[in-house]
């Protein structure tokens, strides 16, 4: 299989006062090149941990993470990450935050400028391009983080609840934008969300995880054609898949 990212029998434990806590328990998962997968699961089931391994920021206790068939070489600009906690550089304006990654690519200044402007516009922050993060509202911070990741235009996008702090309309707009970009440029996307609707609407496959210990519970294929449309959200097929995912998440057999 032509896997872009492979998780091979991943175990992640944390030492605790009383024994160890198993955050991920033998998780294996392949994400194909140019695939869009979403990950859902109860709070604390290890979604962020798994993603952080793909980013090269966390090491598994045992098991292996492969990118393009080779062990993950640490973090790199080929895999863009949007963190659950935004992680903006507080001393840089919105524009400078977005340009941070572009500077590292040694782009000519006007090209850099252009791409930053574009990403900022995409998330609707043009009027705040020169504002410092501390003056932004929660949703605006999140959008800035999104713009920063988009601007670099990485091959793989790892997104941890990227639209969690956004109002419904902005959210739908950004979902459609993301799908649009993805289908045009065919990036690989791993997208964590707690919104089942969103998970189904975006993905080719929905990874349903279970908690205590964190593991892959079920993988639901979404056999809806791209481009996805608002009508599809109302289709019976969508409702069926939605229910299947919901069921997978919330009627899990209790773990040992």
């Amino acid at each position, binding site marked *: 299989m032509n896997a872009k990212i492979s998780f091979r029998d991943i175990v992640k434990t944390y030492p605790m006062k009383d024994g160890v806590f198993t955050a991920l328990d033998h998780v294996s998962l392949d994400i194909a090149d140019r695939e869009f997968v979403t990950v859902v699961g109860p709070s604390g089931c290890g979604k962020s941990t798994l993603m952080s391994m793909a980013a090269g920021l966390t090491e598994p206790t045992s098991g292996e993470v492969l990118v393009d068939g080779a062990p993950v070489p640490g973090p790199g600009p080929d895999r863009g990450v949007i963190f659950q906690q935004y992680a903006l550089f*507080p*001393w840089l304006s919105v524009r400078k935050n977005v340009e*941070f990654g572009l500077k590292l690519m040694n782009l000519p200044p006007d090209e850099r400028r252009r791409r930053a402007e574009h990403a900022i516009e995409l998330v609707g922050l043009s009027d705040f391009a020169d504002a410092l993060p501390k003056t932004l509202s929660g949703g605006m911070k999140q959008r800035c983080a999104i713009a920063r990741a988009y601007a670099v235009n990485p091959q793989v996008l790892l997104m941890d609840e990227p639209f969690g702090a956004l109002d419904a309309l902005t959210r739908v707009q950004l979902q459609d934008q993301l799908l649009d970009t993805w289908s045009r440029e065919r990036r690989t996307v791993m997208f964590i969300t707690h919104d089942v609707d969103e998970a189904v609407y975006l993905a080719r496959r929905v990874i349903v995880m279970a908690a205590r210990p964190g593991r892959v519970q079920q993988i639901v294929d979404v056999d809806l054609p791209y481009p996805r449309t608002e009508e599809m959200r109302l289709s019976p097929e969508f409702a069926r898949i939605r229910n299947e995912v919901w069921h997978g998440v919330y009627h899990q057999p209790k773990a040992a």
Partner: protein
Amino acid sequence: MTQLTTLGKPAAPAARRAAGRPRRTLVLNLVAVVLGLLVWTLLATIGVQGLPTPMEVAAKAGELVADGTLLQDALASLRRVLLGFLMGTLLAIPVGFLMGWYATARGLLEPYVQFFRTIPPLAIIPLAIVLLGIGEVPKVFVIFLAAFLSSVVSTFQGVVDVDKTLINAARVLGASDRTIFLKVVVPASTPFILVGMRVGLGSAWGTLVAAELIAAQEGLGYRMQQAQLYYDLSTIFVGLIAIGVLGLLMDRLLLLAERRLTDWQERR
């Protein structure tokens, strides 16, 4: 201003405070200085033997200003302190980074940094003379060492305390260690670095007298030692006050720099 309006104190006083702030601080500073002078006068006139009064010191200062000695001494000392301080604190930043970032550098450097930090500057002088002679170099070196050693701890801690998520954010954007240092660690630890610089500044001035033990021909520390031979307390006080005031001015400049550099911080 922003931080003051969000102080969370009842509305009216906070607003008033925000408005009148710079002037109020100045007034308070003045009050403090006047109080200090009063206490001093009291000590000098009533209790303590040998203590010159503020008037006597002012008269002596007048003399020293008039014959140009004070200006010349102040300039000589200022040059030494500035040089030593700048080199010391600027070197402390990369060294603090190395120690905070690479376990190897830390293991090798830390014993020395900690060891020499506790060694009094007076004790360094013989070695400085042997290795560097009796010109300006050993004087600046002693000051440099004091400034470096007292600010490197702070810088080091700043590096260690940088929020991990920010470093991760830079890494995933493809930043090298060097970039992370310059573009993330340095700005993120600016508050610590500036504390380090302010502490280093204090050490630099505090070491001046010791430094000017090395065959100085002029300088505030030298003048004070001379005066000590003659038990000329007024001149010693003029020297102390000149050092204090110059130190205070430089500290204010650093504070100003800090305000501008850490504007992005969310704080009270």
